[in-house]
């Protein structure tokens, strides 16, 4: 069979997101990495809930299930348990995944069934026309919060860590060079891979991530972590993270200042849980970079494999099943009635 090209993963339907929506970029990255990794159309399943991002399966030439609000992880779990050979992707948003579907996301992450959950975080309800979402920044004025929101926003990566996720990554929608490898790593991970995509909504929350994406100031506001590499960032690569001396936590430092060099910086360790917590939180305060890349990755027990222990190795024939059922029914006390009965 011939190798598929990225465009082969696109369905024939017109993509109907708003022009300029960040979702286009994610879709493009997805098509590319599926082609790059030799994915098969028939073995790829895209499941989504409700919201703008949840339209994604319609734009894929793979199998797709556009389900109901918040429930995609549960439906995807059932499909994956039924057919472990499928490569299952869940596409959700900040409202779908963290508000109405928060419970399912929590339990999917803790179970660690082999699938990818890509959460498009635009910090707003787009499809219902602009109400604040659980990740909206405090004080945002929306139709449902005319005086500004009073709720503390939820940090998706921190939520994922709390839920026990074993793979947590974050990217910006348009940075294909960051997002592509993350999606590839997520696909390869044996367990539930959680990918938060900071995604721009051009209509209701335009520019909310500009300070991260902007060519000039973006590098000063983001830190791309790589396993085994020192945590350096900034337009001039002159900033970094180190462990707070004599304290607990992380500290942003400027290199050369006070004679600091890269050797004084923390080296990223994907398997360090405490570090992942600290990295996930960064960016919530002024002066801190938002961390992108794979924040945490740790091999764990994959739920599907564990749940199959005890199942017959090969599919049983109908005759064999009925015979086992007959035996099971007779495992309880039975007795005979009739002329021949003892």
């Amino acid at each position, binding site marked *: 069979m011939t190798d598929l090209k990225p465009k082969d993963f696109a369905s024939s339907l017109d993509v109907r997101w708003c022009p300029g929506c960040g979702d286009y970029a994610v879709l493009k990255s997805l098509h590319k990495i599926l082609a790059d990794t030799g994915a098969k159309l028939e073995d790829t399943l895209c499941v989504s809930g409700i919201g703008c991002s949840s339209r994604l399966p319609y734009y894929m030439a793979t199998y797709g299930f556009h389900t109901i609000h918040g429930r995609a992880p549960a439906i995807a779990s059932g499909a994956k348990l039924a057919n472990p*050979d499928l490569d299952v992707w869940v596409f959700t948003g900040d409202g779908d995944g963290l508000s109405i579907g928060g419970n399912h996301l929590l339990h999917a992450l803790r179970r660690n069934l082999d699938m990818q959950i890509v959460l498009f975080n635009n910090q707003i309800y787009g499809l219902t026309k602009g109400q604040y979402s659980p990740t909206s920044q405090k004080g945002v004025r929306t139709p449902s919060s005319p005086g500004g929101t009073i709720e503390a926003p939820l940090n998706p990566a921190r939520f994922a860590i709390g839920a026990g996720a074993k793979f947590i990554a974050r990217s910006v929608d348009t940075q294909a060079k960051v997002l592509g490898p993350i999606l590839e790593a997520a696909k390869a991970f044996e367990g539930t891979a959680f990918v938060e995509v900071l995604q721009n909504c051009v209509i209701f929350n335009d520019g909310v991530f500009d300070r991260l994406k902007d060519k000039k100031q973006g590098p000063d506001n983001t830190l791309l972590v790589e396993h085994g590499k020192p945590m350096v960032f900034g337009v001039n690569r002159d900033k970094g993270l180190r462990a707070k001396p004599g304290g607990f936590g992380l500290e942003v430092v400027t290199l050369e200042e006070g004679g600091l060099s890269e050797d004084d910086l923390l080296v990223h360790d994907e398997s360090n849980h405490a570090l992942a917590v600290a990295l996930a939180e960064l960016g919530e305060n002024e002066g801190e970079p938002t961390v992108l890349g794979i924040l945490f990755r740790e091999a764990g027990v994959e739920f599907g494999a564990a749940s199959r222990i005890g199942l017959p190795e090969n599919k049983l024939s109908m005759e064999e099943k009925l015979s086992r059922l007959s035996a099971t029914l007779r495992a309880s006390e039975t007795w005979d009635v009739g002329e021949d009965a003892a």
Partner: protein
Amino acid sequence: MQNGPEHSVSTHELPVSQQPEVDYVRVRFAGDSGDGIQMTGTRLAESAARFGNDIATFPDFPADIRAPSGTIYGVSAYSLNIGHSEVDTFGDETDALVALNPAALRKYLEGVKQNGLLIIDMDAFTERAISKAGFAGNPLEDGSLTNFRVLPLEITSNTEKALKETGLSAKDARRCKNMWTLGLVLWLFERSTADVEHWIEQKFHKKPDVAKANILALQAGHLYGEVSDLPPDVSRYRIQPAPLMEGEYRSINGNEGMAYGLYAGATLADLELFYGSYPITPASPLLHTVAKLKELGAISFQAEDEIAAVCAAIGASYAGHLGVTGSSGPGIALKTEAIGLAIMTELPLVIVNVQRGGPSTGLPTKTEQSDLFQAIWGRNGDAPLPVIAPAHPGECFDIGVEAAKLATRHMTPLMVLSDGYIANASAPWKLPDFSDPAYAPFPVTQVSNPEGFQPFCHDEETMARPWAVPGTPELMHRIGGLEKQAGSGNISYDGENHQLMTEIRARKLEAVANSIPLQHVESGKSTGKLALLGWGSSWGPIRVAARRAELDGKSVSHIHLRHLWPLPPNLEELLSGFDRVIIPEMNNGQLATVLRSQISTPVESVTSVKGRPFLVREIAQIIEDALGA
């Protein structure tokens, strides 16, 4: 046509009897919820069934796990009816009540018939326990029990005495008092203790001390009956075996039967069973039973909530298994949106609702059949699905098979309405013979040919759409909750198309109606003065009352609906052959309301929502009111 096993072969055509204590005896064990009452009752039921009696049981336990001891609300009871004749109910009245404490006596005395037998553990009748139960004085001494035959025994101290040599602590020894009591009751029925001893040995094979103590207590109780001078008015019960249909039997309750039936159904459809569920009373044993079928290839999944449970089942169906979810009313309410998705995407799915008293949390451990409206109409949009209901525990297996058959044949979700009574009650059940044509396989075809494939193109006869499962090359397509273009399945907001798709979903139910059997008469003639029309677990009391009235020469027939939605096509014609049609049901008149919207034959409604099945005498009263004494 291919209608699944139509009726479980059970005890249907045994004679019906009116002579208690000759043809049948109704016994009730009652005590604290920690007294092992359920186990005691189950053992007696098994023993009687093995002996060849027909039985019907009714476990009645509190919603609290361990309510404070000695309280009325902490009383747990197990009623059973042991018959030489056909028994379909646990009995209106009790012939013998075993009360292990004052609260048990107080709670269940009302149900004991005049001159009935009371076996009482005197040791439990302390002043404090008597007042905790709400008695003004000691009922054993104040003459309030003169209408009964009272057998006050020192059950607790007799048990302790019997176990003195075992070295067990007094507390542990007292825990065996249920076995002592069972031993005595077995003696009362002229039964040996051998079966129960065998069971104890198996149950406690890892704890030989416990096994030994229980067996000693059991034998001591039996011996007590043998050697003590019991009052002359305490006679033993001689209930001969019932002339059951030949075959191999076991006893089964509705939840077990349903779980096994769903597995058999999935198997006959040549599919794997996926059961997604969330714990809820009284449906949890379905999950427990399927979980034990792992070696048979069944997948069970305990989800994080009711919604995830049904969604996982839908996902499994989408991926090519038979997805099943089970719950009770409140859980079904949560699953509602997802059931709509299964209707919209036309995936096979079985939803089992083991109904309980509602609304809201309602009466979790009590039975009711008040989710009929919810089943038929409880979704947004025009969202039809078939609804079927078992009449008794022995029918649950075949209902499970039929559910799998209809859901896959027509590519539709389907709801089964069981209830708390059917789920927990047990009865002798003739084991299925899979070579019987009733269990002929109905293998499902999952499509693989891309030639002209259209995911939402429908079969004219069954109105099923092709089932193309992920993993199949060349058939990639997208489905979802949005309205679909007929044929291609692409999203469509077109009004004409929505009209067409709504009609297609309705026609799917018509296709089901054409494939189910015509409605038959359960007992009595096919025309006459009165038809009692029932569904679900009101089967037992209606059957007994109708057959007895018929023996008395009354023109009464019993019609029982297994297919509630769509209704059997001949129902209107059948009902029109009766002067009056009365529907007794355990809700506020739901089936009557449904029928009034569907057929022109007038129907009358008699309802009862008391947390228990109808009593035979209540149904007999309906007949008498309609036809005269």
